């Protein structure tokens, strides 16, 4: 038969043999740049925040005393040494947070760029006789390395620039090494994700295998750092090796040896496994004949529940863990916060006041709000994906109206947000209660639900974009989200104008549980979201369905 209906011309360019490497790098570089900037901002914010909050050496000593000796903090973020210097604080805080964030980014990026692209059938086009499976995998890994390099370079440039500022005093070489340490978690898990992409039959499973590895690595590191005399366990976890780098305080480049070694081994395994399987197949067999489950499959909304369930469960578990950890460290972190008058002021700039654990949670729940907003953005992307891939056609050529399909999707997304918010509140309370922090369950659940309205607003804005410019829907959500998050971070550092701050979807959100949630404002946020979604829905009803 004449047509195979593939019109996308395989990119060739000047070096057709490196096409997979270039495509992988091209598809990954945008997120590497974005996260490089976020990493850089986080380094900046850690340095300037510390400078602003702990001005005198007395305050710094007090901080080192409280946080430095807290076992919970050490287990969750990592051992805090040298907190009486800006370098020590920056190294501890950025390494503790960015290693894990980078690892999650790395495993998602690698599985998306390898398994995801292969599942979508793009590899078939790219490879098309130009190179072997093995060569293709090697090229894709090269592309991933390019992404890691971009992440490092941007982090490094910002770190060096911050280090030069007169009050911070971090020399260039140390700043470069800090950037290496901050992105090494990402680098390791890019390689882990590349390997699980060979093992698992789908992108989602590849990501969850890699997530499992991260969970084990984190747990090992946690036990090692919990002061139970098991410090040697740190050498059993890649996250422990990253800690052993001790950037800025006592640099130990030798700890790079196991990190680089592991990456090398994973790379070789990836290439080997890729050569030993068929394109689109997996090393671990797919359970291709699961039992038939039709309970949810009686209409479009049931189908949506079935389709988004695994993703939402993954998010809710992540949020539950985040809530639990924030709750666990709330008391100790709160004590450190209130030990500094300047810090108290900084915190009150965020809208939180009071003392101790509630104050800390009020600020820290901004992170959880970001996670909820990410769920919302993901749901908009998923709805658009159904349209772009032509799956929606199968529903809309049957007696299903566009409005009812979209309304169903939005209800499911909203339900997921409410569940996620409530779960964050409950697990935050569990963690805090286990430390006798004296925060009530009702307050914490209210604080969790308080995170939902900004996410609903993102959902609404995304739906509006979905109606008007469907191909830009997902991008619009992430743009609003990234912008809002940056405004929140920077707004805390510089004295940003109210006009600027008001452009953040998070800015109107009360810093619960430090202060009571403002349900009137929340109702306004939700109403705005609903209005935007309604307009988007009406436009969607009357437009052409648009392919990818």
């Amino acid at each position, binding site marked *: 038969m*004449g*047509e195979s209906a593939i019109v996308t011309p395989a990119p060739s360019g000047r070096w057709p043999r490196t096409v997979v490497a270039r495509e992988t790098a091209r598809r990954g570089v945008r997120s590497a740049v974005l996260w490089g900037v976020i990493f850089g901002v986080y380094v900046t914010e850690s340095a300037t925040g510390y400078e602003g909050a702990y001005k005198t050496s007395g305050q710094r000593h007090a901080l080192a005393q409280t946080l430095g000796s807290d076992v919970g903090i050490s287990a969750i973020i990592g051992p805090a040494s040298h907190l009486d210097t800006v370098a020590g604080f920056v190294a501890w805080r950025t390494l503790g947070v960015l290693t894990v964030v980078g690892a999650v980014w790395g495993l998602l990026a690698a599985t998306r760029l390898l398994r995801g692209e292969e599942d979508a059938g793009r590899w078939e086009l790219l490879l098309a006789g130009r190179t072997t499976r093995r060569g293709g995998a090697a090229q894709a890994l090269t592309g991933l390395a390019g992404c890691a390099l971009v992440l490092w370079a941007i982090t490094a440039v910002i770190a060096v620039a911050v280090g030069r500022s007169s009050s911070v005093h971090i020399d260039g070489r140390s700043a470069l090494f800090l950037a290496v340490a901050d992105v090494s978690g990402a680098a390791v898990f890019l390689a882990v994700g590349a390997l699980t992409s060979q093992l698992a039959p789908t992108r989602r499973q590849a990501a969850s295998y890699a997530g499992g590895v991260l969970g084990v690595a984190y747990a090992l590191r946690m036990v090692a750092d919990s002061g139970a005399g098991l410090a040697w366990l740190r050498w059993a976890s890649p996250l422990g090796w990253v800690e052993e780098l001790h950037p800025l305080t006592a640099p130990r480049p030798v700890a790079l040896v196991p990190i680089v070694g592991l990456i090398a081994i994973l790379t070789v395994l990836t290439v080997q496994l890729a050569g030993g399987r068929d394109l689109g197949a997996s090393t671990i067999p797919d359970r291709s*004949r699961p039992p038939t489950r039709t309970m949810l*499959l*009686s*209409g479009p909304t049931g189908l949506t529940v079935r389709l988004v369930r695994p993703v939402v469960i993954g998010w809710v578990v992540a949020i539950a863990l985040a809530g639990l950890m924030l709750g666990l460290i709330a008391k100790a972190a709160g004590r450190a916060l209130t030990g500094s008058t300047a810090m108290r002021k900084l915190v009150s700039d965020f809208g939180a006041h009071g003392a101790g654990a509630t104050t800390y949670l009020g600020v820290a729940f901004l992170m959880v709000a970001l996670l909820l907003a990410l769920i919302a953005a993901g749901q908009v992307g998923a709805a658009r994906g159904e349209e772009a891939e032509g799956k929606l056609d199968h529903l809309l050529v049957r007696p*299903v109206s566009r409005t009812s399909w979209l309304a169903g999707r939005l209800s499911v997304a909203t339900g997921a947000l409410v569940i996620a918010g409530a779960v964050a509140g409950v697990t935050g309370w569990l963690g805090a209660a286990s430390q006798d922090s004296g925060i009530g369950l009702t307050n914490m659940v209210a604080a969790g639900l308080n995170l939902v309205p900004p996410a609903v607003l993102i959902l609404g804005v995304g739906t509006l974009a979905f109606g008007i410019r469907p191909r830009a829907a997902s991008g619009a959500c992430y743009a609003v989200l990234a912008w809002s998050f940056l405004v929140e971070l920077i707004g805390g550092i510089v004295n940003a104008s109210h006009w600027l701050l008001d452009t953040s979807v998070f800015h109107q959100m009360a810093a619960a549980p430090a202060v009571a949630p403002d349900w009137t404002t929340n109702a306004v946020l939700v109403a705005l979201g609903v209005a935007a979604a309604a307009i988007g829905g009406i436009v969607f009803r*009357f437009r*052409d369905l648009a392919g990818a």
Partner: protein
Amino acid sequence: MAEPAIHTSGLSKRYADVDALSDLDLDVHQGEVVGYLGPNGSGKTTTLRLLLGLIRPTSGSAEIFGLDCQRRPVEAHRRLAYVAGEANLWPSLTGSETLHLLGRVQGQVDAAYRGELIARFDLDPSKKVRTYSKGNRQKLILIAALMARPDLLLLDEPTSGLDPLMEQAFRHSVHEAKERGQTVFLSSHILSEVEALCDRVGILRNGRLVDMGTLSDMRHLSALTVEATFDGSVPDLSRVPGVSSVEVEGRVVRCQVQGTVEPLLKVLASSGVHELLSREPSLEELFLAHYGRSTDPGTGSLEVPALGG
């Protein structure tokens, strides 16, 4: 008189710089099997997506059983089923889960017939869609459409990716549908398929319907192919009225005759013809006549492989 299954008037769709469909006036009566032929890019899919209300016309209107395709899509869709040439389904569902879902959404399923179709198309519905080949996914959406026994079947190149055996199963199913009085609108670039199945054929070229009629109508209107073998010398036939495309191969002459054959017969009779063959044009030849073989630069989009079936 029942309302037509499909009625369009002046239906047009313009994308930024292409007229994907221009001024389509089409009537498909209930119980008819109508073929819709055109090479890639001629506007077949655009027509079907307009009929389904998936895209909006630039101008004109379309109705399915008298229901406006844009304003009352849900009611119109209760009476039809559609099969696209590209079956992108949910990879995490199994075949039977997909059929269950699509049946429930459609609102009507002939369960016994579904079983028959699964056997006929030799599909293993217990597997996940992810593990299906393109052909298997195509079978799945064919079964999903046929099992609803809708009044109207809209089929857009439905057999792409099917092997010849399954192509037979498909033809059998269309015959069955016709016997039950269902209407079928079949877009295709496979001429033999349309020739075997359809009562009427429309030919689409660059978004315009250039011909529409029964196959016999079309054949009468177009040229007859004549092949004559001579005993002795070959006469010059090119000046005979109505004759064109004369090809000489030794003592054999092939030519086309438009209109009456009388002048040609006179010439042949006086020139010692030894053997005479004549036949009606195949659909392929009709089709090529509309596209001027590949000599017309305006039809660059016509690729001969697309006609090979």
